[in-house]
């Protein structure tokens, strides 16, 4: 045979096959091929191919189109029928439907709430223009030879300038540094013409490079962005501050004075910063106040440094050169202080969730918390889906005859599956509607406990205004419809009509087994969440109940005056003497810092004779002579500072931790020893006493080595007043009055140390509350499912219990009979759950330096309450069967 002729053009063939009805295709194709092969002989291949194309296109006429014809002509009718029967079924079994829909909608609502929270967290700092080019220059520090690197959010003053000078890839750099670094507490005051000065303590005031305002998108409502920080006496304040000091007046060009000494001109009004930024700024000063000495300093890593790259630069390129940069500028410093430093660039939008370094401007979020919440929301949804699956399959017997009839009349398995999927879609659709309603209602409460501030718009807009919410709703709807609907649909559609219509109803053991596994799974999740809540709150109360090493009851803290002149020391003594005359006041002391935050005054100390490598970081606290008695810190050896001993200016008191790290075996051994401290150079200090360890920070942190020193009247920021009174209000009023008299012009700001200290646990409490909310939701959904299942099972066994009662079973026996299987499931869930919770709980507790010891007692409350709850639900549902008169339950047939 000669070689086969070339086939007709492939594209035309494909087109033909696509549009042509399968029945017609063969005939038509046959004719077309016959013509084609004949034409090759008569008019040549090329023209034959062209003719083939023409013919195929020519044949594309309605009679040949086949797609629509292949589907069942009454598809729409059947679909409408499915919807109708879904509706009727739901209506007929109201309780069952309600439980299903309610459970689903709670699960969905939890997901939507979490999504909203996650969105809020992810939106931090995303509003800046050129976001992808903004980075923060983080500084990593470690002691020589140690691998542990501590990263801080602030850098050396000179880093920004050097970086910009050396690297052409960098478009701009900007630094901001907290004013508090320079002057402790700061007071702003405005003196209106002819009025009394308006004076307040202010926090979150920063000295900023002029480039800062251009780099970040914080709009000025008044003033020129370009020039607002161009002069050393410029100040930019927020709208809130403007309102506070100037009221209705126009603040622009007016004078604000800092600590009564420096006069500043308002050159810009900054729009109040939104919550969704890692900055917290009330006022900005110009960095022109810095001398070249500061600007070129490679010490003092307190300057938050930001970098904007050129559009064509890559961050990898710049970051790769940072090691060389650090070595070039910091080589000497690192050697001198025996430390290692490294710099990294962190995208500004990652700071909120991936920051949490030392020296963050404000508290950052936590990626782990966010992930954990996502997991919990998913678990709740899973519980709801399991409810749906369990309830639908357990009801299969009721639906069996319907399925049987449908099949006899001609429904195929696919049709039945489609029917049940339609039912599932209807339920999920209703559920998503309810879920949105719930979210709108819960949102305000949730946002409050989760600490989310919504700036504008109604709750409703907040929920539905986000495109991602709609996406999530669609995913929840489809996920629910298919994931939860598919299994019951397959089970129900697999019934054989003959058996079901004849009444051969079987409860396949395997399926019951599957349902039990599901219930155990739900119980485990529910139990974990209750126990988790218990552990969180146990840890919280544990931390708050521990001895701190000092007494913070009735300890009033007043900020030391910022507006002072040469008489400051005298006035301080006067204030002390005047207050001590009052019976309600036990003791007063001055100090540079107070417990409740991470004290930043850290220096290297060592024994005088040792090398610097043996040294370690210790926290320095400047105190007066009355500090230990005011705080009631116990001294285990030696003495505190004494006014009459002149040399105490070079004396220090260590805490036990520092003594241990220095390598002394007992506190007495260290007395009168000389310790070297590295500040700018080495200083020798004599140890005069040893104090007990204190918890300076929350118990999430470990105890630190402390060095107390005596500033002899200088460098105090706080007044610590030990009260002994029932009448707090009058005492405070007295303190305020005396303060006003002794330190005129200074605003008085005070708080109780215990309240202040407690603020450190705010994040934990927030986490605990959010966790509780979701635990409650999870339990609610699980209980709904249990309720439905118990009610169904007891209704199935109505007749059985009737007969048992007739034969002499007691009510108690009936309860036991019906409740037994659920109680077994709880027992199994407890056995499975405890190791899981044990592991997870310890994992979470590992974040805390001081933590509760988990023991089996933690589980007692959750397990018993779970047990009780289940028992109650089962009891309630069984009572219908157990208490009813057998005459009634057996009468109908």
């Amino acid at each position, binding site marked *: 045979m000669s070689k086969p002729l070339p086939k007709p053009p492939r594209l035309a063939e494909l087109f033909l096959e696509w549009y042509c009805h399968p029945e017609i295709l063969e*005939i038509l194709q*046959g004719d077309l091929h*016959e*013509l084609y092969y004949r034409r090759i002989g008569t008019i040549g291949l090329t023209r034959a191919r062209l003719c083939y194309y023409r013919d195929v296109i*020519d*044949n594309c006429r309605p*009679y*040949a189109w086949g797609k629509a014809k292949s589907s069942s002509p009454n598809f729409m009718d059947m679909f409408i029928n499915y919807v109708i029967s879904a509706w009727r079924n739901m209506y007929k079994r109201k309780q069952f439907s309600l439980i299903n829909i309610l459970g689903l909608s709670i699960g969905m609502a939890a997901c939507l709430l979490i999504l909203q929270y996650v969105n809020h967290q992810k939106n931090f700092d995303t509003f800046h223009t050129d976001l992808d080019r903004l980075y923060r220059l983080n500084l990593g520090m470690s002691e020589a030879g140690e691998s542990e690197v501590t990263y801080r959010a602030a850098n050396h003053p000179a880093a920004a300038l050097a970086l910009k000078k050396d690297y052409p890839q960098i478009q701009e750099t900007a630094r901001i540094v907290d004013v508090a670094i320079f002057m402790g507490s700061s007071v702003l005051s405005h003196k209106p013409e002819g009025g009394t000065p308006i004076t307040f303590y202010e926090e979150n005031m920063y000295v900023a490079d002029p480039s800062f305002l251009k780099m970040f998108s914080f709009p000025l409502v008044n003033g020129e962005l370009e020039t607002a920080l161009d002069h050393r006496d410029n100040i930019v304040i927020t709208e809130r501050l403007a309102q506070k000091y100037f009221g209705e007046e126009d603040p622009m060009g007016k004078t604000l004075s800092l600590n009564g000494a420096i006069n500043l001109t308002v050159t810009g009004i900054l729009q109040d910063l939104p919550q969704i930024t890692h900055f917290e700024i009330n006022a900005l000063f110009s960095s022109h106040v810095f001398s070249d000495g500061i600007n070129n300093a490679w010490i003092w890593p307190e300057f938050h440094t930001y970098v904007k790259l050129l559009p064509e630069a890559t961050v990898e390129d710049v970051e790769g050169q940072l090691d060389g940069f650090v070595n070039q500028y910091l080589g000497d410093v690192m050697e001198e202080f025996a430390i290692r430093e490294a710099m990294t660039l962190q995208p500004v939008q990652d700071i909120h969730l991936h920051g949490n370094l030392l020296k963050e401007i404000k508290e950052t979020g936590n990626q782990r918390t966010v992930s954990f919440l996502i997991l919990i929301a998913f678990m709740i949804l899973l519980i709801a889906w399991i409810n749906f699956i369990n309830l639908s399959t357990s009801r299969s017997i009721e639906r069996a005859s319907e399925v049987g009839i449908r099949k006899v009349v001609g429904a195929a398995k696919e049709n039945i599956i489609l029917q049940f999927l339609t039912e599932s879609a209807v339920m999920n659709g209703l559920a998503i509607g309810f879920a949105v309603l719930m979210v709108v209602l819960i949102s305000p409460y949730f946002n409050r406990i989760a600490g989310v501030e919504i700036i504008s718009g109604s709750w409703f807009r907040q929920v539905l205004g986000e495109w991602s919410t709609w996406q999530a709703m669609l995913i929840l709807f489809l996920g629910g419809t298919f994931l939860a609907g598919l299994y019951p649909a397959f089970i129900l559609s697999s019934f054989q009509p003959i058996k079901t219509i004849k009444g051969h109803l079987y409860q396949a053991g395997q399926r019951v087994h599957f349902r039990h596994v599901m219930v155990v799974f739900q119980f485990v999740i529910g139990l974990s969440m209750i126990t988790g809540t218990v552990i969180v709150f146990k840890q919280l109360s544990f931390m708050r109940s521990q001895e701190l090493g000092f007494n913070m009851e009735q300890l009033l803290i007043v900020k030391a005056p910022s507006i002072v002149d040469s008489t400051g020391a005298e006035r301080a003594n006067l204030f002390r003497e005047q207050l001590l005359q009052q019976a309600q006041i036990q003791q007063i002391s001055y100090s540079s810092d107070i417990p409740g935050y991470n004290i930043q005054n850290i220096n290297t100390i060592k024994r005088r004779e040792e090398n610097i490598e043996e040294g370690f970081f210790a926290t320095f606290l400047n105190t007066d002579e009355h500090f230990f008695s005011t705080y009631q810190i116990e001294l285990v050896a030696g003495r505190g500072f004494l006014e009459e001993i002149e040399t105490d200016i070079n004396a220090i008191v260590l805490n036990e931790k520092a003594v241990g790290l220095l390598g002394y075996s007992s506190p007495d051994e260290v007395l009168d020893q000389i310790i070297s401290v590295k500040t700018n150079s080495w200083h020798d200090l004599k140890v005069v006493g040893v104090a007990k360890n204190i918890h300076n920070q929350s118990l999430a942190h470990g105890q630190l080595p402390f060095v107390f020193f005596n500033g002899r009247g200088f460098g105090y920021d706080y007044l610590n007043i030990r009260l002994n009174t029932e009448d707090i209000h009058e005492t405070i009023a007295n303190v305020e009055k005396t303060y006003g008299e002794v330190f005129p012009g200074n605003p008085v700001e005070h708080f109780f140390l215990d309240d202040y200290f407690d603020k450190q646990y705010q994040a934990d409490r927030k986490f605990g509350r959010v966790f509780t909310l979701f635990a409650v939701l999870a339990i609610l959904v699980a209980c709904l499912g249990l309720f439905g299942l118990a009610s169904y099972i007891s209704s199935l066994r109505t007749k059985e219990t009737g007969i048992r009662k007739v034969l002499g079973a007691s009510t108690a026996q009936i309860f036991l009979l019906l409740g037994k299987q659920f109680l077994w499931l709880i027992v199994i869930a407890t056995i499975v759950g405890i190791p899981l919770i044990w592991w997870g709980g310890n994992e979470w507790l590992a974040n805390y330096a001081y933590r509760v010891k988990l023991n089996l007692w933690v589980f007692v409350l959750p397990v018993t309450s779970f047990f009780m709850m289940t028992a109650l639900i089962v009891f309630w549902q069984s009572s219908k069967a157990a208490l009813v008169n057998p005459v009634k339950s057996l009468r109908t047939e």
Partner: protein
Amino acid sequence: MKILGSFEELVLLAVGSLGDQAYGVAVKDLLEETGGKKPSIGALHSALHRLEEKGMLDSWIGGATSERGGIRKKYYSLTPIGKKALQEAHDVRAKLSINIQGLNLG
């Protein structure tokens, strides 16, 4: 009476005259030979399909032959309705044309 288009009439005549060999390409060939008319294959198939729906043609699927690489043919034949329709069409023509001078239609 069902209206018969002029192309449909030609197709019916061709199918009728081909006997049991009337399939798409054969009908097309015959029309080309006798009438000089070159129907497109699309128009032809469409017409065949339409006539079948009107009940004037009957069809069956023939056996596979090597001629078309094993692809089967669909054969058509006239139904009584089809024959009647042809007859009627012819009658109408005859009646009308009889009065035309110089025309011999036999």
